[in-house]
């Protein structure tokens, strides 16, 4: 059994010159750093699956530096005193973070102490058949087809698929043969109010002139299923140039001459390779120490990241407008129909349907458009047998688009951004079975429902951590369809995602946290009032003398039914608590309040600051020792984070 332990390891802060010393443990599943320092003693737990790369830098006087980059954008920089220890950890990690078979993934050993029944119930939480029923499908125009029951028509689709009633089996099979990977047009969302359908597929194998009557029939059938519109939109989410290039390979896009009732539209979202490169550039810029504002803005622009986010959002808005304003059905595809198509269909549905903006609904949406329709999580998130060309932050972009929406519509979502970040965390953690593998078929082969646990059950069990305090269910009534602005200035850099673990970047007081605290008080007050009221009832005769009637003393409930999230503590304020102990500690502080702690002896370093905001951490300039040095420098320039002194 593996357990390596190294003492006296230094952990360097990424952006300042601060460091802490502690012990490094390597277990079968985690790399753990425990700070040896008395009071704070922070612990860092890094799951092996989260590690994207390990790098051994050249030896320095203080030891051997080890740089670890994680998929959740954490970056840790250790300095290990002895070269041999460093090498041991390095080589063990290399072995551990490249599992060769699915069985090695954490999900298969993770055991949250649930029995089989609980596990099963967890997997039953999300039921896609029920979801289609909620949308009003099957109906007089749409039916469930069993053509893919055995995964014979399309390996990467789920078993249950919904198609127009006029689409017969031969049409389906014919159409599937004319589409990349057999991914023929199927229903993914039904907008009941206008009977408009959102369908998805892959590109047609049209080349320069090929046709397929069944495929043309299929699109006709989709069009006919909607009496509100004489045409359907076909959205090719690729840039036109890419689609043209695909024609040379016998693929391509629909020719409007052959498909009578379509309106064809390119929307220009870039491919997985461009997106991968873009994120890389973004992270490089954001990781720069002493980053100037100019380099930040230029880097943000050059990375193209926000441009891509905006392109996805624009496409989703186009889809939502076609459905709501024109009542038209929309068919979305890209090349294989599992990346851009998933982004646009999922985000479009989220704009159309308030259900997807609730915690449960958002899980359903991910389960439907991403998991069941075969977004290749294993490849894109580099779970196993890495092919670096297949890795791409497609799902991360979707989460970010949702976050951008929460910024414009703070009351529209039941969940806070922490929910999105947590899902992102687990897409890469391989701790739960949901995102393992590339398709439903593969998941069945892996027997995930029998051998692993569902993330959704886990997240629902701590739902209170993810609630958005200003969520208003009535917002959905006044804004059933979200109409976000796509002005460039509405898109912001998502600091809490990409700098989640960089403490010094975050506000040291958070509105979210504050409102959480108020929630806690609300529940305390309610229970205390109940108690006091019951006590007072013991002296009914006395109540009159106080001029108090019994009615106003009835225990009050908050204006809306809410559960009460505990006060969170994390690097980002607003994140859920990690342990019971912290909850207790937080509550204790609550009781004594700020004043009490004010007078307490100052902790190490003697800094008493708000939520740990500190001058040194932010590095406005380092002044220490500058007067003590004998050779006083002639010029001192203090720049962000570093003082450069020239004599």
């Amino acid at each position, binding site marked *: 059994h593996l357990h390596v332990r190294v003492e006296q390891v230094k952990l360097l802060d990424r952006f300042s010159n601060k460091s802490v010393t502690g012990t490094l443990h390597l277990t079968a599943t985690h790399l753990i750093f425990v700070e040896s320092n008395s009071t704070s003693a922070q612990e860092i737990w890094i799951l092996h699956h989260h590690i994207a790369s390990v790098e051994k830098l050249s030896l320095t006087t203080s030891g051997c530096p080890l740089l670890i980059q994680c998929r959740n954008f954490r970056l840790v920089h250790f300095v290990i005193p002895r070269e041999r220890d460093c090498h041991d950890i390095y080589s063990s990690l290399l072995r551990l973070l490249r599992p060769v078979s699915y069985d090695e993934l954490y999900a298969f050993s993770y055991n949250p102490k649930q029995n089989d029944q609980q596990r099963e119930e967890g997997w039953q939480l999300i039921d896609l058949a029920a979801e289609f029923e909620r949308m009003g499908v099957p109906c007089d125009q749409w039916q469930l087809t069993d053509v893919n029951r055995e995964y014979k028509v399309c390996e990467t689709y789920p078993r249950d698929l919904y198609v127009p009633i006029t689409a017969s089996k031969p049409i389906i099979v014919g159409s599937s043969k004319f589409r990349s990977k057999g991914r023929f047009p199927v229903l993914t969302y039904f907008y009941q109010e206008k009977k408009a359908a959102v369908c998805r597929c892959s590109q047609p194998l049209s080349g320069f002139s090929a046709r397929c009557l069944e495929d043309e029939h299929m699109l006709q059938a989709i069009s006919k299923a909607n009496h509100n519109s004489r045409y359907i939109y076909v959205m090719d989410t690729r840039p036109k140039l890419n689609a043209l290039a695909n024609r040379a390979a016998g693929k391509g896009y629909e020719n409007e001459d052959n498909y009578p009732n379509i309106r064809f539209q390119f929307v220009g979202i870039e491919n997985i390779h461009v997106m991968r490169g873009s994120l890389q550039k973004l992270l490089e810029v954001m990781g720069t120490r002493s980053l100037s504002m100019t380099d930040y803005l230029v880097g943000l622009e050059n990375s193209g990241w926000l441009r891509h986010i905006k392109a996805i959002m624009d496409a989703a808005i186009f889809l939502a407008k076609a459905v709501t304003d024109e009542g038209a059905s929309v068919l979305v595809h890209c090349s294989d129909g599992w990346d851009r198509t998933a982004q646009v269909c999922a985000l479009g549905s989220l704009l159309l349907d308030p259900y997807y903006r609730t915690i449960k609904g958002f899980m359903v949406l991910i389960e439907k458009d991403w998991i069941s329709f075969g977004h290749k999580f294993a490849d894109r998130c580099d779970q196993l047998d890495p092919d670096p060309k297949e890795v791409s932050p497609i799902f991360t972009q979707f989460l970010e688009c949702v976050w951008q929406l929460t910024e414009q519509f703070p009351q529209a979502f039941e969940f806070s951004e922490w929910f999105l970040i947590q899902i992102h965390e687990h897409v890469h953690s391989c701790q739960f079975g949901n995102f393992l593998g590339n398709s439903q078929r593969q998941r069945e082969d892996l027997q995930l429902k029998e051998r692993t646990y569902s993330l959704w059950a886990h997240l629902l069990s701590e739902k209170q951590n993810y609630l958005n*305090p200003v969520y208003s269910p009535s917002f959905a009534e006044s804004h059933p369809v979200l109409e976000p602005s796509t002005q460039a200035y509405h898109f912001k850099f998502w600091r809490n995602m990409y700098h989640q673990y960089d403490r010094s970047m975050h506000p040291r007081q958070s509105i979210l946290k504050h409102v959480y605290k108020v929630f806690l008080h609300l529940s305390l007050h309610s229970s205390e009032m109940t108690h006091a009221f019951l006590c*007072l009832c013991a002296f009914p005769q006395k109540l009159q003398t106080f001029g108090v009637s019994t009615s106003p003393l009835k225990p009050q409930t908050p204006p809306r039914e809410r559960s009460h999230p505990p006060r969170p503590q994390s690097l980002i304020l607003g994140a859920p608590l990690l342990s019971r102990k912290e909850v207790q500690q937080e509550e204790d502080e609550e009781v004594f309040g700020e004043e009490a702690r004010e007078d307490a002896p100052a902790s190490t370093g003697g800094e008493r600051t708000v939520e740990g905001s500190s001058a040194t951490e932010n590095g406005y300039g380092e002044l220490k020792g500058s007067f003590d040095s004998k050779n006083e420098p002639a010029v001192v320039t203090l720049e962000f984070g570093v003082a450069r002194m020239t004599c």
Partner: protein
Amino acid sequence: MEFAELIKTPRVDGVVLHRPFMPTVEGTLCLTGHHLILSSRQDNTEELWLLHANIDSIEKRFVGSLGTIIVKCKDLRVIQLDIPGMEECLNIASSIEALSTLDSVSLMYPFFYRPLFEVIEDGWQLFVPEEAFKDLESMTDEWRLSEVNKDFSVCPSYPSLLTVPKDIDDESLCKAASFRHGGRFPVLSYYHKKNGMVMMRAAQPLTGTNGRRCKEDEKLINATLCAGKRGYIIDTRTIAVAQQAKARGGGFEQEANYPQWRRIHKAIERSNVLQEGLIKLVEACNDQSHSMDRWLSKLEASNWQSNVKEILTTACLAAQCIDREGASVLVHGTEGTDSTLQVTSLAQIILDPACRTIRGFEALIEREWLQAGHPFQQRCAQSAYSNGKPRSEAPVFLLFLDCVWQILRQFPCSFQFNENFLIMLFEHAYASQFGTFLGNSVAERLKLLLSQKTVSLWSWVNRPQELERFLNPLYEPNNLVIWPSVAPQSLLLWEGVFLRWNRSTKCLDEAYQEMVHIIEYNKELQNKVNSLRRQLAQLETEDGPLQTP
């Protein structure tokens, strides 16, 4: 001069007003000496009252006989007026142009404005130097209030009363003044109660190319150091700019003459460059056609966010020297009326919890901006839409407010006021019915008899019914130093000002209201719980210990 001479057409009917995100209004346009008024004369539509002083520039367009005037305001709003009749349109346009560019201060609206409320607490008397000095006296006896500038002859931009080291006599002050740009000799800006360190401000020393020195100046600033202690001089200019200043008679403190001081150069832009940045930024924000790349590159090119970062970093550095290094600090740039004040006032917000209250912030603006001689009238004469070559306009104060907003964003529970308070100050600095921001110095304000002839902004703001809008529901006083992050990722564009008229804020406003609602409901419950507790305690003392049911 009669305003009537400038108003050729006082009234036009059938004018249509267009504003972004608001319904169009058709009504009658009236011009008065100080206002442009548009009223639909229907009960439920609001009227537009626009101060001429708020108009930054106008543009005229004609399509047939329908004229259009685009009015661009100093608060960055842009509105459009469709005026039937070419002659009427031309008349209105030329009147607006004339009335919005009146040269004489005494013709400004504050001299004509009569408040519709009763002035309970006169803002002109609220923040007098004597009162501030009393507070200081309660903490230390190292300082005195000097009247050396009582007739403004030593330094025309300083107030008549100045806080200086006790051991320095007025004669030395005069000599030091002659060694500093504009006579702005080092004076006390802030006393850090926690460790007795101080922050002083001044203008650049007039060392010139031949390295002139002034013993009195050296003695003056050394008098602020404790025995054996050393201090920091924060020069807000780069070393290169400071070197160049020597050629024009300015300069910086030579190490040899100030051995107890360590000089640090920062790179805060000079005010004339800032104006260009504001114009570029607002232009970028107003162009709805930008692609993401173009928006980001225009935002970058404006340099606005860089300026915010540099100013904040310098202020944090000053605060760090005082609080963490336990050293006193002298801050100056060139004139000591712009970047210097940005740094000294922001450092106080970081260090001193009192400055984060409404009263404290007002006092800070009085002390560090108005009395310290920031030339508001010159700097705020034009805003982002000015066409002409800028004379001495510069958004120095707006940048300061932006920095405060950044800190407020990072410490949303530490300020008694909210964002609206900062936006209100921005508006009134550029155009106002109150006299507070008129003039360029205390001396000018006295000459204009502002305190007799106009109403103070504070008289109005501090009324409980106005104050309500500016209170931060999240405020929980805390006595700690607040250190903001100055990483570019932590600094945001101040949307409340720069995108204010370009976006619909309905959803954001409602979310804010919901938050306020939750917090107020909590307070209400807290009060009920407390009163129940009291009742219970009283009952228990009357009836002996009670068995809990």
